[in-house]
């Protein structure tokens, strides 16, 4: 048990001590009670903010902890979403269709990322080449999906749908039970928690320490006897699977997906969430992903055309003035304030 506590509470992420964990527990209680306090519509919106978190976590893992930047992680989001649509759509008569579809979607994401990762990591390319190639990959995917309009572009009974996208994608469920509305919200919440704590434990483990060591100094880590290529590759595939998980939840939430989900604008979003939160903290990225999704949605639902200008400017400002991330810097500030407050309260 103490081993588990060490894994969760280790130094890989900000946030330790009883004050922090009671805050986490309170927040979780708030999220658990939230659906009973608001309308179905708001629950559904909040589920959308939550379902993007695994994608953000994947970016934090890859960029912040491993030092590898990808501008095309939405490609794996889209690949998983489309694969789920194809598999679950074709198995719509079978009660296990959605489960097979979900596993298939994650598998396809992992395989594509594995092949792509083999080329870039085993070639030991320079650091700046990976973001460029991942970006090109996702742009190609968008172009490809965009020209799949028409009846000849179908897999089994499912149409890919060109620029209008794939519609009528089945919701997730087991047998008769379907995750919709409030139950889908809880599904997202549980998965986000599992991803967060799973990653936190992974990064506190020996594997995680080596990953961080690779970020700090590739050559030194390698001369200590670690195969850095295999670890970078594994982290890349894992982060692609996390992006795929978000893609699955997205298509199960809205029952459709369009090629613009893998386009340039969408590709920018995970990078922005991670940079604004602070790429070296999982928790900061969780908070930033949730907050920025809320912000984007609120801005654009008010018909504000400046939404993407504001988000882009936010990225520039963060990189200029808060290079370690806004949430991380706020947290460090709080951390400095808190002990003093406690000392003063004791007096």
């Amino acid at each position, binding site marked *: 048990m103490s081993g588990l506590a060490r894994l969760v509470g280790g130094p890989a992420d900000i946030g330790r001590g009883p004050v922090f964990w009671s805050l986490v527990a309170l927040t979780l209680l708030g999220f658990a009670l939230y659906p009973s306090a608001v309308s179905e519509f708001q629950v559904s919106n909040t589920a959308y903010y939550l379902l993007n978190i695994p994608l953000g976590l994947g970016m934090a893992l890859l960029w912040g902890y491993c030092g590898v930047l990808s501008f095309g992680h939405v490609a794996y989001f889209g690949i998983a979403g489309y694969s789920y649509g194809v598999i679950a759509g074709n198995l719509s008569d079978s009660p296990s269709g959605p489960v097979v579809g979900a596993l298939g979607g994650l598998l396809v994401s992992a395989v594509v990322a594995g092949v792509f990762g083999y080329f870039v990591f085993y*070639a030991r390319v320079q650091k700046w080449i990976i973001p460029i*190639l991942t970006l*090109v990959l996702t742009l190609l995917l968008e*172009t*490809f999906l965009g020209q799949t309009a028409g009846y000849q572009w179908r897999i089994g009974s499912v149409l890919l749908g060109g620029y209008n996208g794939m519609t009528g994608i089945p919701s997730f469920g087991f047998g008769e039970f379907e995750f919709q509305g409030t139950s889908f919200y809880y599904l997202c919440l549980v998965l986000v928690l599992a991803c967060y704590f799973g990653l936190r434990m992974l990064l506190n483990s020996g594997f995680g320490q080596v990953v961080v060591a690779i970020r700090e100094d590739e050559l030194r880590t390698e001369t200590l006897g670690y195969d850095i290529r295999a670890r970078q590759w594994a982290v890349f595939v894992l982060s692609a699977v996390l992006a795929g998980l978000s893609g699955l939840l997205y298509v199960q939430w809205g029952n459709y997906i369009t090629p613009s989900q893998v386009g340039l604008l969408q590709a920018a979003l995970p990078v922005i969430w991670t940079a604004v939160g602070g790429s070296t903290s999982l928790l900061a990225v969780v908070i930033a992903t949730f907050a920025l999704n809320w912000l984007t949605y609120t801005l654009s639902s008010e018909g504000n055309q400046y939404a993407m*200008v504001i988000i882009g400017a*936010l990225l*520039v400002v963060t990189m200029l003035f808060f290079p370690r991330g806004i949430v991380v810097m706020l947290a460090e500030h709080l951390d400095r304030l808190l002990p003093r407050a406690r000392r003063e309260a004791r007096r």
Partner: protein
Amino acid sequence: METQSLVLSLLYQLGTSAAFFFLAAVGLIIILGMMNIINLAHGELMMMGAYTATIATHAGVPFALTVPLAFLVVAAFGAVLERLIVRRFYGRQLGALVVTWGISLVMGQGTLLFFGPFMPSIKIPGGSFSYGDFSFSEYWLVLIAISVALIALLWWLYNRTTYGLQARAAMQDATMAKSLGVRTGRVYTLTFSLGAGLAGLSGALIAPTATIAPFMGQQFVAPAFITVVVGGAANVIAGAVGSATLLAAVKTPVGMAFGAFYGTVALLFAALVIIRIMPDGISARLQRWFDRRSRSGLL
């Protein structure tokens, strides 16, 4: 006659796509090679050049004059960008990538809000002539000639002028160059401005052949960056020329046989395979070859 015109047409296709790759990548590769900064706002700088040329043409300025105008406008913008933002990211490659991406988002979205979703295009200057069964556009032949002239001009700039010497010195060892009296800050501003200006120039040159829209920069992202990745940063001009020619040789036959999309897919695969063999790009390989030749006294 039949085969002759086919060969000529193939050469023309190769030449036009090599010129396209070169023009799309030249500004980017200069900034990368001389400053080690990857400028993801490159596509938007090209878009800015295309907009400048289009607006000036519609205002009655002859097209030939709008091209240098686009160079100047975008170069000035680039200088401002370097002074205000890019300057803070020297030595932080990934940070520079991310911040220039933010800039590109703001530029693309800002153009959309300011100028609307599209702009009336300008028509391709010059006519076309036919030889055998194929017809050739005079404008693209001019673009090939301009590309060759640009290569010569850049070679001259970097090998025969004081600025070129200082820029190469700052690239090799900034501290050493500084202590020898080179004002590296000013050299970097000039280099970034030159790279941005060349992006604007290319954007203006390609404008008549493209749809003028806020997100037109995106279509240059894939070709420009693949050219740069394949070319590498060891020798700017050799890399750009070698990579543009090689990629044109990959894309042209695939594109002619299976359509433009598969031509681009072939490009990505070619890039993946080439970096697997030559992780530092063609230019590193070429540079080593040049070095060997010059050591053995052949060059």
